[in-house]
Structure formats: C-alpha cells, structure tokens
C-alpha cells in the first residue's frame, strides 16, 4: 500500500461509490455487525436527545443547578471526597471495556477458555457497575431527590438524573445478560459449529458503546 495519500483518498472515495452504487451488498461486513452499528447509530440519537433535553432545562432554569461535585461526594476516611463513587464507576466500566476488547481478540484466535473468562469478567464488572448505580440511586432518594424536586436547587436535576442514568443503567443490565449468553455459546462450542467468532465482536460493539455513552454522561452530567 505505497500509494500517495491523495491517490489513496481518491481510491477510497471510488470504493465508497462502488460499494453504494453497485447492485450488491453495500457493507462488506457480516450482516450482524452492520445491523449492530445501525442500532447503535439510533441509540446515539436517543442518548443525544436525553443529554440535549438536560442541557435545555439546565440553561433555562432560574434556580441554581445543584453542584454535582458535592451531590455525588462520599464521606470516606473522615472527609468528603468529591465525585469519588462516579470516578470508581468510570474506572470499572473502562476496565470492562478492556476485558471485552481482549475477549474479542482471543475469540478470533480460537482461544475459547480465555474468551469465556474475559466475557464473564466483563459481565461481572458490568454487574458491579449496576450495583454501584443502585447504591447511588438509593443514597440520592434517601436524601430527598425526586423527579420533581430536590433539597439543593433546580427541580429538573432529579428528572434529568433519573432519566439519563436510568436509561444507561438499563443498557448496562441488558449488556450483562447479552454477554453471559455470548459466553455460554462460546463455552458450548456454538461458534465453532457456526465457523465464525464474529458474533463476539458484535457483542463487543454493544458493550463498548455503553462505555462510550458513559464517557459523555460523565463529562456533561457529572463534571459540567
């Protein structure tokens, strides 16, 4: 591949034209992967709508927005550490993304034992994340946060929080189930019979997307 970069760019554009114009399959990936990407595209729109509505209510509210740094602080070792639970949740999710990437890699190498172990590890980390989120919800509800109000300021804080993190938590929960089913199928030799481990990569796409959404929630809801 020692073309000039301009020629390469033109070449790939011709490739696009060829892929879409010809009377044939447009995406040269397994159909499951193309469908997963299109589903993730639709999910991107859903989460962006949530985050955009959150932006809108936060801009338009006349009462002050509660400070997330203080709201999500935990009292540990005799002092309040800001946002610490959310930071730990972020690291848990990133760790799970790493184990997922390795699971996909070992799947393609036909290393079944490692693939199953890494998939289960990913699911366990995902379940840990959901557990911590349940703890966070419980703590906030005990402190009086409701979808229609809270003790610290703008009432829209609660509805945005429950809507966004709740929808993300549902995605993680569904992902844990999805990964466990995939792990079971790897263990039982389902993909050996099928002759391909691409399904593991498709499950990986979903899982990385869940992590991706969290990156945006972390930045816009918790850090902003």
């Amino acid at each position, binding site marked *: 591949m020692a073309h000039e970069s301009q020629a390469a760019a033109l070449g790939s554009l011709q490739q696009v034209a060829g892929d879409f114009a010809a009377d044939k399959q447009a995406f040269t990936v397994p159909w499951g992967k193309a469908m997963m990407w299109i589903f993730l*595209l639709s999910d991107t729109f859903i989460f962006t709508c949530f985050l*955009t509505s959150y932006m809108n209510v936060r801009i338009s509210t006349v009462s002050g927005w509660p400070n997330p740094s203080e709201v999500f602080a935990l009292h540990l070792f005799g002092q309040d550490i800001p946002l610490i639970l959310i930071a730990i949740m972020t690291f848990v999710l990133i760790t799970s993304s790493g184990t997922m990437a390795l699971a996909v890699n070992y799947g393609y190498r036909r290393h079944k034992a490692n693939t199953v172990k890494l998939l289960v590890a990913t699911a366990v980390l995902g379940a840990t994340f959901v557990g911590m989120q349940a703890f966070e919800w419980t703590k906030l509800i005990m402190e009086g946060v409701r979808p229609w109000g809270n003790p610290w300021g703008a009432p829209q804080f609660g509805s945005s929080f429950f809507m966004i993190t709740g929808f993300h938590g549902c995605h993680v929960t569904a992902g844990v189930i999805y990964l466990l089913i995939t792990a079971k199928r790897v263990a039982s030799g389902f993909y050996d019979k099928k002759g391909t481990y691409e399904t593991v990569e498709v499950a990986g796409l979903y899982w990385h997307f869940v992590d991706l959404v969290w990156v945006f929630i972390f930045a816009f809801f918790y850090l902003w």
Partner: protein
Amino acid sequence: MSEAKEGQQHPLTIYLWIWLLLFVLSTFSYLVDYFHLQGMLRWTLIIVFMLLKAGFIVAIFMHMAWERLALKLAILVPPLCLLILIGFMAIEGDYTFITRGTAFLR
C-alpha cells in the same frame, strides 16, 4: 490489508496501550473536578478528554479505524445533524431563561 484473516485481528499490545490511555484520560478528567478548575479551562479540558476517550473507543476498541470508508461514512456522518439539534436547543433554552426572568422574577 489482511483480508485472509477472519474479522478484525490486531496485536494485543494495541488494546493494552489504548486501555492504559483511557485510564490516564479518565484520571485527568476526574482531577479537573478534584482540583476545582473553573471557567473556560474546565470546559475545554472536559471536552478535550471526553473527545479523546470517545475517539479511541470508537477507532480502536470498536475497530472503526480499520473498517471500509463506506461503513465509516454511514455511521459517523448522520450524528453530525445532532449538532443542529444541540444548537437549536441551546438557543431555545436561553430564550426560555430570559422569558422566565422577565415574566416571573420581577
């Protein structure tokens, strides 16, 4: 192009490096809050770390960097129209804020 091999197969070291990088970037974004950085510096750092993390996840972990351009365009271009939604809603939010200020806070 290694079309002979099945699917997306890349050396393990790439994943391990990106994994480490994501940890570092997450730590940085947490430190932005921990050290109470404020104003433009805060927003800039948050956005930069966020985009870097998102970029590495999509490009490497989700293998987008190695896909054909047709798939890249089909998936990555449509979300750009969301920027228009975000812009409109920001203007709308400002308008609502001003209206509330003049109507209710006199």
